[in-house]
């Protein structure tokens, strides 16, 4: 069960260049909007033809630019969950599912079974427009599984849903993925979604794919600026190696780092929740003035300006428990610190 993708596609000024392999796993494709995630899925599904390259699933060649192979989507057995689900509006839920069953002699049996698995019996004869968002997603999943796919492509599966529905449906989708034997590609711009659901992650940055890593590596050692930003790191600032120390010119700071500092680093990442108020003997103490505070539901976000900052340099963002900020006396000037092992070194 392996998928290998290595393709290039020009669309106007945009150039997509992706290269990755997936081995019987849930592979996340993480990227900002407009970075080519959907285009990549459409190339795998055969809806868009790449300009060059090779796509292969379990030895079956989907596309090969040199050998002029371009299998039609019907022969690829790809289960594509579209963002808006793409249920056929003129058909009932049961007809939608039934239309996808390939073995015509087993239609009724397959449809009945899927309707019950996805708790859709009560709405079997309803039109998609009459369903709730959650029911629409279940109907779309049931229809995809009716077509007996060998790989699942999920395109931002929760983008069309209200956030309170998301948690429930994420569990249901996880059940489906557990029982599915084959590769799954999960496209998302949400790092938490990817962290919870994917075995490995491929970062897509402005059409270029980076190496495939585990979610842990992505969050604790993202390696590149774009990966750090996509992993949710709020403070990314230009930095230089200074022997085993790190210089941050725009804040006029030198920081200790627990990791070996290579000479090729160009920036560092400091996660907002890794920054805390400094004790007297802390390493990496940074005296700052408070620019602004914002209240989250359970936390307070504090925007800081390190005292030695050059004009127009970026601010430093920290996020702490609300009680800690409420209990604090001096809310104008603070000294914060970051542990040496929490500094992310970025190329």
């Amino acid at each position: 069960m392996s998928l290998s993708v290595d393709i290039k596609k020009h669309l106007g000024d945009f150039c997509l260049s992706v290269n990755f392999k997936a081995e019987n796993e849930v592979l996340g494709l993480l990227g900002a909007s407009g970075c080519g995630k959907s285009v990549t899925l459409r190339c795998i599904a055969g809806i868009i033809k790449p300009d060059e390259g090779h796509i292969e699933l379990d030895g079956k060649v989907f596309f090969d630019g040199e050998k002029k192979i371009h299998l039609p989507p019907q022969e690829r057995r790809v289960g594509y969950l579209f963002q808006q689900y793409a249920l056929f509006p003129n058909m009932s839920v049961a007809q939608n599912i039934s239309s996808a069953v390939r073995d015509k002699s087993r239609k009724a049996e397959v449809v009945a079974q899927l309707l019950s698995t996805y708790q859709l019996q009560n709405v079997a004869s309803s039109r998609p427009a009459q369903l709730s968002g959650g029911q629409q997603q279940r109907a779309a999943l049931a229809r995809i599984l009716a077509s007996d796919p060998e790989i699942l492509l999920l395109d931002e599966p929760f983008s069309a849903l209200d956030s309170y529905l998301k948690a429930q449906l994420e569990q249901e989708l996880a059940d489906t993925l557990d029982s599915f034997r084959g590769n799954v590609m999960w496209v998302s711009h949400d790092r938490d979604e990817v962290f919870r659901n994917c075995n490995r992650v491929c970062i897509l940055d402005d059409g270029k794919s980076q190496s495939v890593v585990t979610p842990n590596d992505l969050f604790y050692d993202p390696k590149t600026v774009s990966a750090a930003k996509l992993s949710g790191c709020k403070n990314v600032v230009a930095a230089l190696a200074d022997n085993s120390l790190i210089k941050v010119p725009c804040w006029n700071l030198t920081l200790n780092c627990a990791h070996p500092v290579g000479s090729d680093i160009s920036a560092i990442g400091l996660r907002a929740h890794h920054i805390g108020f400094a004790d007297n003997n802390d390493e990496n103490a940074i005296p700052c003035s408070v620019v602004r505070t914002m209240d989250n539901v359970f936390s307070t976000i504090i925007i800081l300006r390190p005292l030695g900052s050059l004009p127009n340099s970026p601010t430093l963002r920290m996020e702490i428990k609300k009680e800690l900020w409420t209990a604090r006396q001096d809310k104008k000037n603070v000294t914060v610190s970051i542990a040496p092992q929490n500094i992310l070194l970025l190329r």
Partner: protein
Amino acid sequence: MDLYPLYNSLRIAAISTVVIFFVGIFAAYYIAKTPRLIKGVLDVLLTLPLVLPPTVVGYLLLRLLGPKHMIGMWFLEHFDLRLVMTWWSAIFASVVVALPLMYRTARGAFESFDETLADAGYTLGLSGTYVFWRIRMPYCRQGILAGTVLSFARALGEYGATSMIAGYTPGRTATISTTVYQLWRTGDDALAFRWVLINIAISAVVLLAINLLEKKQRSAKGVVA
């Protein structure tokens, strides 16, 4: 009262509508997919009869189908068949004149179609034919029905090109519109008036049908929203 013109008009309009239905949908579907330059040229060609005087269309048809011209001569030589001055010659005229209505409404309907539905169908293993007839056409049903009814109404009311290519022979090529003109010319005002009333009645029914279709379309969209 000889009802032949009514019968003749209805069969010409009905046959024309069937031809227009398929040609119009085919043209709307495939022209939308062609490169921009070709699309622009074909679009102008197919819409031109909508704005040209029907006499100009009739003249051009005669230059193509007349017994001394290109297509007409070829049919006369090989099949001993005259393409003009028969009852069905009027079909050529009404197809050309009414086709733009079908083509443009169908194209508008197809352009509003959500292509991801077709993509979803293909990835589920559905054939192009299935997707076209079972997903795309039902989605665009209201627009295509409206175009069909409009084309039927226009074909029924065709006069200029028809009178040139089919002429007026009572009991053979006479249609309602050519009969009204002939009766008025010969001073049979009372009979002309009867045919005028018949024509107005048919057209009113057709327009009523279009309005009902549009209302249905609006309420159907309301449900979705």
